[in-house]
């Protein structure tokens, strides 16, 4: 044969389910040799070059650029130059993606698995068919549903009400009422409006039936506020939005954050830590270690040590399983021009400050130039997000799944505080917020972790052990 081979969407990590061809480096008909860059593929986390593993010719491009395609989708066909077009078309037509239900070139995600069949409810109480269907769908216990229909029949409305949380109506309360006999006949609202605006109903001509004074009759007499008369009136121009579709990274960020914020029950544990000693020690330590370690590097180190002591925080949550890790792989949130990325400092609990500083500066440089590899961003057991450089006091972060927790770091603030000797002095404080996935981490466990972290930061000698 003419050595026809399929080029499919690669799978670069366990979490990768789809990718996008950002750009083809070759045209149909171009020959390439092993090592040539074929195309750029974007995933949830990174954009990478795809290099050729053999020599061949790009005969046919199947996948359009810029469309998210599942792993295994046929992207292109490689074949020797002498292969005839009909054979290649036949190959495309016959292609079945391995291990997926996706046909060649089809850009659709596989249909979701059918939902579990609703529980069947057996009842001898009278109930409407739709009400029964809803009760089964929502798994409502009919024993607690009152039937308001004739002879206690349960209606759709009854089941729907039973499925909802108790109402908390906002009450506006009673109003005073003038109960003097009426001399002029207006609707209750007309009377109320007239009283509000100090209008004597006797001066209002009623246009309702039998001369009754209506709301509109009173409103017509309410003086309109005089318009301000300073120069020409301001006329707002048209305020039309510029509509920009989300790019790949923004879409991914939006989807993952929505998923995390809506499916993970977050709890937030806040602490303020004194950082005077850390700031003082950092200058000396950086001289000794010969690096420019940032406050954030020290925080990564402190978090890593604290994680090593509290393995119940150093976790990932996968469905109903909690994965405990022997070492702390700490993701650091980096804002880049193209969006938020979270490269990972691996084994941070085993690294010295200078090693962490070297690793983070390398990762940040890669992030800023868009060169992060999949391995740089895959996994992680904990995250740190620092917005202190923007001068804000404190904030709460959304967990980066499947990790179990994220630490949000604010700016160093100067604050007056009572010291141990009873004097009041300024000290430097840092606000930390730990967001925990409450499915896996209880408040007490998170609080113990925070206490250790606080201790390490306030007495930073422990960071050098």
């Amino acid at each position: 044969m003419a050595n026809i081979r399929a080029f499919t969407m690669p799978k670069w990590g366990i979490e990768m389910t789809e990718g996008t061809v950002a750009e083809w480096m070759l045209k149909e008909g171009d020959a390439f040799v092993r090592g040539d860059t074929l195309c750029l593929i974007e995933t949830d986390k990174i954009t990478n070059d795809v290099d050729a593993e053999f020599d061949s010719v790009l005969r046919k491009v199947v996948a359009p650029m810029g469309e998210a395609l599942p792993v295994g989708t046929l992207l292109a066909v490689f074949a020797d130059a002498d292969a005839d077009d009909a054979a290649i078309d036949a190959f495309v037509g016959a292609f079945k993606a391995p291990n997926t239900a996706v046909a060649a070139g089809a850009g659709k995600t596989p249909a979701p698995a059918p939902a579990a069949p609703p529980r069947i409810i057996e009842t001898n109480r009278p109930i409407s068919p739709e009400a029964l269907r809803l009760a089964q769908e929502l798994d409502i216990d009919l024993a607690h549903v009152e039937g308001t229909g004739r002879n206690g029949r349960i209606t759709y409305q009854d089941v729907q009400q039973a499925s909802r949380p108790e109402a908390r109506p906002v009450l506006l309360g009673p109003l005073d009422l003038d109960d003097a006999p009426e001399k002029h006949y207006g609707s209750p609202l007309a009377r109320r409006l007239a009283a509000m605006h100090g209008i004597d109903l006797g001066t209002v001509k009623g246009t309702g039936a039998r001369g009754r004074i209506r709301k509109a009759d009173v409103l017509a007499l309410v003086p309109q506020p005089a318009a301000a008369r300073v120069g020409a009136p301001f006329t707002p121009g048209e305020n039309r939005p510029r509509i920009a579709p989300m790019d790949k990274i923004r879409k991914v960020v939006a989807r993952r954050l929505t998923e995390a914020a809506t499916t993970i029950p977050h709890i937030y544990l806040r602490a303020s830590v004194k950082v005077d000693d850390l700031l003082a020690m950092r200058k000396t330590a950086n001289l000794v270690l010969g690096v420019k370690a940032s406050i954030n590097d020290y925080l990564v180190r402190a978090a890593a040590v604290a994680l090593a002591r509290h393995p119940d925080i150093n976790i990932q949550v996968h469905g109903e399983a909690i994965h405990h890790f022997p070492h702390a792989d700490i993701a650091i949130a980096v804002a880049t021009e193209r969006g938020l990325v979270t490269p990972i400092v691996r084994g941070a609990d085993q690294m010295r400050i200078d090693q962490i500083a070297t690793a983070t500066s390398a990762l940040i440089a890669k992030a800023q130039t868009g060169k992060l590899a999949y391995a740089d961003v895959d996994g992680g057991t904990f995250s740190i997000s620092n917005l202190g450089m923007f001068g804000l006091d404190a904030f709460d972060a959304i967990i980066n799944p499947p990790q179990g927790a994220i630490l949000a770091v604010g700016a160093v603030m100067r604050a007056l505080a009572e010291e141990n000797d009873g004097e009041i002095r300024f000290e430097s404080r840092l606000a930390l917020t730990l967001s925990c996935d409450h499915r896996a981490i209880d408040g007490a466990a998170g609080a113990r972790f925070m206490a250790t972290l606080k201790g390490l930061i306030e007495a930073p000698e422990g960071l050098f052990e």
Partner: protein
Amino acid sequence: MAQMMYRDAVLQTLFAEMERDENVVVLGEDIVGGMGTAGGPEAIGGIWSTSVGLFDKFGKDRVIDTPISESAIVGAAAGLALAGKRPVAELMFADFIGVSLDQIWNQIGKFRYMFGGKTTCPAVIRMAYGAGFNAAAQHSQSVYALLTAMPGIKVVTPSTPADVKGLLTQAIRDDDPVIFMEHKALYGTMGEVPDGDYAIPFGHARLCRAGQDVTIVTLGLMVGFCEAVADKLATEGIGCDVIDLRTTSPMDEEAILDSVEITGRLVVVDESPPRCSLASDIAGLVTTKAFASLKAPPALVTTPHTPIPFARELESNYLPSPDKIEAAIRQTLAWR
């Protein structure tokens, strides 16, 4: 302002209007009240004491005792009205409109229309209605819904002595036939009544309590129940607009809708059975014209769909009560 009873407001208004206009004639069973008795014609003055002294003042040509025949009473009133008089007929019990229904429904309600507007029929038919007296199924009914369903007649249901004066004055002066329904349980209630000439236009509901959380539409005896419940709930910060309809035909649609547009919740309290009723009519009005404002389905507090029981315990359980009204209000507030 004078303090007087509901029944005295009826009597004094009849007296004043008969004095004002010699065309006003009253007729009914035993309204003179003592004809043929040892005490003389005026011994009793009608079983409701709403016509005491009229015979003495205005004489037999204007105060007419009739045979026990509602058909005859209403038929005579119809004829009087066509002949230019302003008759005020009394039916002792509203339950008996059945035998005079042709006169009410097919005659007085339709004259003006069938004669092309060339005549009017200014008849007033007073009737005592309502339950609470252990008077059983044939002497306790609230038939306003049945009459409200008939085009061509106006239906008035005063709840206070002041409204009796204002509405009965308007009824007698009105050129159209008016059914004037007096609740038996209200005859003995006291209230302030404005002095002098006092007529309340029809179709003008009365706001008895003002609040912004629930609209309660009611009439007759139920008004007092609703006011008491509204006062109780006000202490919890729950504000009720209590609307006394005063007239069910014409009905003050504007007052109801304006209120529901603010509160978003409706409770209708009506002491008659629920099917094809005033309560369902008002619920229908609100759901068709104020659907967008509703935060909960309208709650209807009515009697069961049965005849009124005789036994006291059953009757008191049959009627709407303050407890049932309060429960309905809380139910609309608890809607999820």
